[in-house]
């Protein structure tokens, strides 16, 4: 039911045409102004928030279905950065006070968040070097982040910083909640291929209070890792939506387009490729569902499943978007046609928090080889 209502809402208020409109208008946020308020009204901001903090605690399988649908419609919104990443990081690391205050405000749609992790062009969460130095009762932050999703619009930045150890250490990483508008925070909107709002953010002697520290000093990596695993599973769900939508649209095209006097779908060269693509999507459905279930069950296998799902979905989303363009022929290369938006979004989602090679490597490491 959630899936159907999400389908209906997204098709009406945030279809691919809306993304095109936002792009053509050079929109700062990348989505319509009232979109998040509408989503919050439907409770989407609160789905992953525990009941104790004013949420619905509806679970990951349900939320995953919504995010999968946003892959079909290429809907840009704060859903991922706020309702998935923000909620997960705060819930995993925060004190009772922080959870009560921040999760409550997220659930009601009052605030949005962004998770600032990467500093280099490749995802490497242990390599964090942005420094947070104790100063008086608070901390001072110096350094820079890049590829921060919703970094231009979020009210609160959740910043992974180093309070001890060296780049490469898991110990010594701490999470801070910083106002985007705080003094010394410089947000630069990057013009990206998928036209969503990402930022490069520099922190120049940014002073934050002790209460800005999320959880314990130096022990933030565990919560960060949890947020990244959850994030990667949701990116996989979105990529599943992309793989399915591009497949459906392409299959329809194979049944309409005529060349040499016959439908191109009658050519075995294309039939076999379509059948292989469909088979790969079936595998993707299974692994995304399992990964979401694993989150709901609090299973220890979540990190491995996050990497399995992300690696597989990166591979298949790449196949899907490339095949979609090729099978559409010339029309697939035109900006007028929607397929181009799918390949652009797919690659960004693939790269965010580690691509196929990153997660294949991580999967092997988790399995001891």
């Amino acid at each position, binding site marked *: 039911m959630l899936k159907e209502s999400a389908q209906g809402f997204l098709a009406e208020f945030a279809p691919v045409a809306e993304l095109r409109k936002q792009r053509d208008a050079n929109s700062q946020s990348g989505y319509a102004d009232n979109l998040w308020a509408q989503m919050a009204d439907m409770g989407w901001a609160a789905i992953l928030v525990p009941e104790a903090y004013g949420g619905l605690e509806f679970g990951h399988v349900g939320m995953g279905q919504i995010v999968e649908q946003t892959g079909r419609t290429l809907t840009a919104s704060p859903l991922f950065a706020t309702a998935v990443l923000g909620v997960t990081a705060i819930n995993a690391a925060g004190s009772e006070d922080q959870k009560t205050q921040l999760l409550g405000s997220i659930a009601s749609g009052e605030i949005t968040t962004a998770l600032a992790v990467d500093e280099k062009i490749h995802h490497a969460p242990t390599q964090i070097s942005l420094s947070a130095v104790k100063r008086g009762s608070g901390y001072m932050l110096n350094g820079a982040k890049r590829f921060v999703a919703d970094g231009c619009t979020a009210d609160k930045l959740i910043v992974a910083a180093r309070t001890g150890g060296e780049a490469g250490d898991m110990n010594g990483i701490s999470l801070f909640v910083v106002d985007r508008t705080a003094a010394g925070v410089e947000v630069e909107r990057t013009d990206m291929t998928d036209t969503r709002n990402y930022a490069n953010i520099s922190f120049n002697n940014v002073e934050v209070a002790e209460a800005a520290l999320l959880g314990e000093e130096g022990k933030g990596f565990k919560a960060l890792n949890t947020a990244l695993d959850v994030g990667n599973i949701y990116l996989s769900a979105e990529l599943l939506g992309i793989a399915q939508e591009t497949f459906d649209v392409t299959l329809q095209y194979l049944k309409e387009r005529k060349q040499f006097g016959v439908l191109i779908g009658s050519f075995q060269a294309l*039939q076999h490729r379509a059948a292989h693509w469909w088979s790969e999507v079936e595998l993707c459905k299974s692994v995304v569902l399992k990964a979401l279930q694993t989150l709901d069950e609090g299973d220890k296998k979540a990190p491995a499943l996050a990497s399995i799902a992300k690696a597989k979905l990166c591979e298949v989303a790449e196949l899907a978007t490339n095949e979609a363009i090729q099978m559409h022929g010339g029309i697939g290369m035109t900006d007028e046609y929607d397929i181009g938006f799918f390949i652009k979004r797919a690659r960004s989602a693939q790269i965010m928090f580690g691509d196929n090679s990153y997660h294949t490597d991580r999967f092997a490491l988790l*399995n001891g080889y």
Partner: protein
Amino acid sequence: MSNLQAFRQETRDWLEENCPPSMREPVKGGESMCWGGRNFKFESKEQQQWMERMGAKGWTAPDWPTEYGGGGLDKVEHKILREEMSRLNARSPLDSFGIWMIGPALLKFGSEALKQQHLPPIVRGEIRWCQGYSEPGAGSDLAGLQSKGEDRGDHFIANGQKVWTSYGDKADWMFCLLRTDSEAKKQMGISLVLFDMLTPGVTPKPIKLISGSSPFCETFLDDVRVEKDQVVGEVNQGWTIAKYLLTHEREMIGGMGMTDAGAETLSQMAARVMGVEQGRMNNPILRADVAKWEIDGACFGLTAERVTDEAKAGSGVGATSAMLKYYGTELNKRRFETLLKINGSDAMIWDGEAANHGWLPRTWLRTKGNSIEGGTSEVQLNVIAKNILGLG
């Protein structure tokens, strides 16, 4: 205690008491599988006991009706039995084309007399079956088969040649496709018939494969008498049943090879042989091959589970079995190519005790047939394109 809990407890107790210790160890390749039949040489007394005890209880075919010797278990009970068997690491008591293929077809399409005659001996492992489908001129294009059954009133006289008859030289009975109406168009005019391999005129000859083994035969039919009461379903309507059986075969082959032969997984073996330094296996290219295979293997395993669950919920596996067959066999081939790379020159040792009698190169070569038998990968892609995607 609920009925199901009681069933689980009874099952557990019965298995504890009746499953011999040696039947709780993994099988060592195809050699130690139990196929049953009139001529079967049991590996051990315990293997025979295990088959007979399970057969008597109907648990070699747990979900078949008790009136035909089956276990009469519903889906939930069947699942409990499987779980309890795997808890003990119990081997399959009987592997049989009777249980996997002709049995289900008889249950669905056979007359009451045929069910009564053939099903109980299948359950007890007394009769071993083989499949007479492919012919030298009819492989992927199965409906082009030419072996004829000439109508002689109460019986047919069969003439022709079958090929790729699995274990044709060891089987007791054959289920066989014959053209019984040569006037009718291709798919029409085919009948599915059953006959004893000892019937005069039936001659199976083993075919030696590139793997060195001979799991298949070519089977010659020279004036073989086939009784009309041994036709499954209606005369000339055998194609529907043949297709149903092919679906079963696809599921069977698709699921094979995904379980590891030993306790060691692909990556464990790779790490052991190649060595690991600073957490990463030596040879980064091979390491990536292994990891990608394990990721695909995990996704495929989850898909087989999901599809089976959905089938039980009512939507049926149907054409999806073509995907499982296609993907599963291609994965299995990839697995053995990777095993070969891991084991270097050792992988080429063809014989000798130390190399487990060439298990690796022989099995590797055997997997090449996985994507041919039961319909090639290309045929499976055709089935997906036509039946699922609706591409003409």
